């Protein structure tokens, strides 16, 4: 027990600081990827609902492929493709190969994966808005952008939150996959600590605990957001 505490302590003989640094990296990547995915998802949903047939078909290909191919494979493809493209651009400007920031690469790669799921979630949420609300806005002569800002987005948030909460949890867990490509996020830091000290159980359980805390804490936060987004809506329970 004492030994375990020593291993997990924050000061140098212990590896606690490494784990926490990994956790911070993981959360950074997850937040970035989730945000990037939301942006892709919003435009994707708009394209799928109101876009031209070409746009709709292309988006269908994007969401189908990303959701059917393992994240690990996509991460490798996007990682290599991203590095190659950036290096080609740098080469065109007469610069040497660029060292790519691990966090930025993780956000780029996971964001594209998240975008496919976010597209479907937001599309479903927009379609769940009672048509009378958008019709009323149109009848008042609201321009399209104002309608999106004042009616569509606020009304769809409540429907989208459960799916997005799930997606956020997937984002936090998918950051672990970046360990395979060698980013020093929580899972890789844990593995390094475990391999050095040979205390595999201690460290993997500790990391599992950290992930679980993130999950449970996010559950509370998303519960609050949903309550806020549903304000003013009739509840089935009380009626």
């Amino acid at each position, binding site marked *: 027990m004492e030994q375990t505490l020593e291993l997990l302590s924050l000061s140098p003989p212990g590896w606690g600081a490494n784990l926490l640094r990994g956790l911070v990296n993981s959360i950074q990547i997850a937040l970035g990827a989730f945000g990037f995915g939301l942006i892709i998802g919003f435009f994707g949903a708009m394209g799928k609902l109101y876009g031209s*047939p*070409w746009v709709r*078909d292309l988006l269908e*290909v994007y969401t189908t*492929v990303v*959701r*059917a*191919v*393992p*994240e*690990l*494979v*996509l991460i*490798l*493809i996007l990682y*290599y*493709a991203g590095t190659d493209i950036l290096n080609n651009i740098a080469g065109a400007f007469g610069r040497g190969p660029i060292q790519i920031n691990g966090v930025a690469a993780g956000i780029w790669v996971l964001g594209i994966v998240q975008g496919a799921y976010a597209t479907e979630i937001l599309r479903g949420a927009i379609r769940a808005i009672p048509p009378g609300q958008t019709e009323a806005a149109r009848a008042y002569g609201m321009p399209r952008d104002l309608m999106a800002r004042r009616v569509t987005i606020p009304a769809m948030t409540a429907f989208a939150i459960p799916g997005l909460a799930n997606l956020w*949890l997937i984002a936090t*867990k*998918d*950051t*672990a*996959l970046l*360990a*395979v490509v060698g980013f020093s996020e929580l*899972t890789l830091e*844990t*593995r390094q600590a*475990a391999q050095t000290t*040979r205390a*595999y*159980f201690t460290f*993997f*359980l500790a*990391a*599992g605990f950290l*992930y*679980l805390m993130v*999950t*449970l804490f996010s559950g509370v936060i998303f519960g609050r957001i949903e309550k806020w987004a549903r304000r003013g809506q009739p509840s089935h329970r009380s009626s």
Partner: protein
Amino acid sequence: MGTARAAVASQLMIRAMLIPRRLIMLGLFAAFVVWCVVTMDWSWLPRYAPLALSGLWVTIWLLVVTIILGFTLAVPLGLAQAIGPWYLAAPARAFCTVIRGTPLLLQIWLLYYGLGSLFPQFPWIRESELWPYLRQAWPYAVLSLTLSYAGYEGEVMRGAFASVQKGQIEAARAFGMPPRKIFFRIWLPQAIRSALPTLGGETILQLKATPLVATITIVELYAVAGRVRQDTFIIYEPLLLLAAGYLVIAGVITLGFRWIEGRGPNMSR
């Protein structure tokens, strides 16, 4: 009945693909494939084809075995959460939360490295009949993938058990069916039926989880592509082929589930 519906559906699908826009897209896709075949380096393919086939076999074997085992575990997990007493419901819920709240990669490594480093410390395990198996990687892969599937599906089955209409159970009871028979003849089949669309999606998620066991030295489809990359420094070709392979398997799973859903009575109310 089911086959007639399937025939109509496939006819509609073919007609949807024959719109000029889609034909152009198909043409572009075919051109891309031809471009890939002609300009990219596929010289490694004949040499690695046997390995790739065995990798494909390992992937499918892992998928089928862990889904069957995981689902058998998910049924009692779901049942305990849906109607079980608190001393069964609480552990089942805790198990599902832990499995769903931590990354699968971490679970795999915990079991493989953690248990793997713990077992040799006990002489009676080393002397047991199971030891030759416990020294290999695949029992840990099967165990972790099974537990993961059970954790996610336990949650799905909880909802499915709760969604079966009460009148059905009451009718069965009124017929004098014993509880065991009610469960296997009435409750479980209807719960599985209502969960089928979700289970189809979850099965694809399980397929997408199998590459993770490549990190504990299991040579499945993904590991083969990794080996090609390491040996020959060819990056994109094996990865593209790999992605195409997973797309095909996912497509087969989707069609399979659609076929199962098309059979039997239509449950949509």
